[in-house]
Structure formats: structure tokens, C-alpha cells
């Protein structure tokens, strides 16, 4: 099962990535734990999470093949 993770704003610079393709993470919290271990600087960052362009609050959300997960710092548009 493959998912795509997108990084925006300063998170892209922190991780050195615009996006990652990852496999075999059944839930959002498992994916987040992996990302925070791989990129420790993420642990000090504030961001919300969107799955398929919709903000989600439940960290134990089940992920599906093809899902797009975006890490979104506080917005500053307008």
C-alpha cells in the first residue's frame, strides 16, 4: 500500500523534501511517528494534517492505497 506525503512552507526546507512516497503505514499515527523519527525537527513544528485535501483530526485514521497526506503549517495567505 503506497501513500504520498507532501511538505509545505518551511517544512520542505526542514525535511529537504517536497514529497515522499512511502509504503505500508496502516494508520496516520504510525506514519507520523515514522516521519518524526526520520526528521526529528518535525517534533518542534506546528502543523495540521490533510488526507486527500481534507483536514483530519483523528490521528488513528486508517490510510488507503493512493492516499495523499499533506503536512500543513498555519496558513498565511490572503
Amino acid at each position, binding site marked *: 500500500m503506497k501513500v504520498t506525503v507532501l511538505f509545505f512552507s518551511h517544512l520542505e526546507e526542514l525535511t529537504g523534501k517536497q514529497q515522499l512516497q512511502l509504503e505500508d503505514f496502516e494508520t496516520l499515527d504510525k506514519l507520523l511517528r515514522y516521519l518524526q523519527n526520520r526528521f526529528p525537527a518535525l517534533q518542534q513544528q506546528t502543523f495540521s494534517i490533510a488526507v486527500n*485535501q481534507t483536514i483530519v483530526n483523528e490521528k488513528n485514521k486508517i490510510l488507503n492505497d493512493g492516499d495523499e497526506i499533506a503536512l500543513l503549517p498555519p*496558513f*498565511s*495567505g490572503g
Partner: protein
Amino acid sequence: MMETKSLYYRLSQEDNFLIQGAIPFEVLHQCLKTLYPHFEKGAIAVFFGKVREDIIEGKKVVAIHYECYEAMAIKVIKRLIATYESDSVWIRIYHSIGEVKAGEISLLVIVSTPHRKQSFELLQTIVERIKKEVPIWKKEIFEDFTYRWK
């Protein structure tokens, strides 16, 4: 300056909320022309957001680079418009992506309703919701080519 033919084409497309670079004044002109035959609407309220030449720690902001999660931004803006638009309410939203220089326009919101009170109130509501809900981020670019994320 965006070539006129391509701008007209883009304005006629459904998902034309995001414009590369500064928003040309022609966009407002086209919207006003579109509104002209709507004789039942007597009020048009317009908000322009302009890049401000802020001075931060002694350095001048010369431009802002707008990064956008486009797929989500389009969904959010469509949902925002659908929330308020009706037979008596007309809304257009345009936001820049990419680089916009100080003094140029990066946000344009136009609201038209039968009477002015609703236009004033709805314009403010929509601008505040854009700032809060649309996944766009600003990178301030300084005169010495350094930058910071806002």
C-alpha cells in the same frame, strides 16, 4: 503582463481562482463587465490585497512568494463560494501564486448582492475565511535576497 487572450480564457474556466504572479487590473474589469447585466444586484463590494513594503529588522520586503497546495486550495475556495453564492449573491475570488512584488495585487475578492449591507458584511466574512482556511503560505523576500516564511 499576462497576454490578454490567455487571461480571458482563464477567466472563463471554472477553477480560475489561482493566478500566477500579480493579479492584473483587467481581472476586475472583466468581472464588472460580467456583472453589468445583473440589474437586480445594486451593490458591488471589492477587496484588493496588496503586497506591503514592510520593514522587518531594518530590511525592506520587496516581494512575497506565495506557495499553495493547489488541489486543496481549489476545493476550499469552491466550497467557500458555494456556501454563500445564490441567485441574489455573486462572488469571485482570485489569489496569486508565485512571486508578487511590493505594491502589486495578490488577492481580489468581489461580492455583489441586491443591497449594500449584505455586500459589506459578506466581503469581510469571505476575506477572513480565505486567510484562515485556504492552504497558502507567504515567503517574504527582502532587498538583500534573504527571506523568511511568515
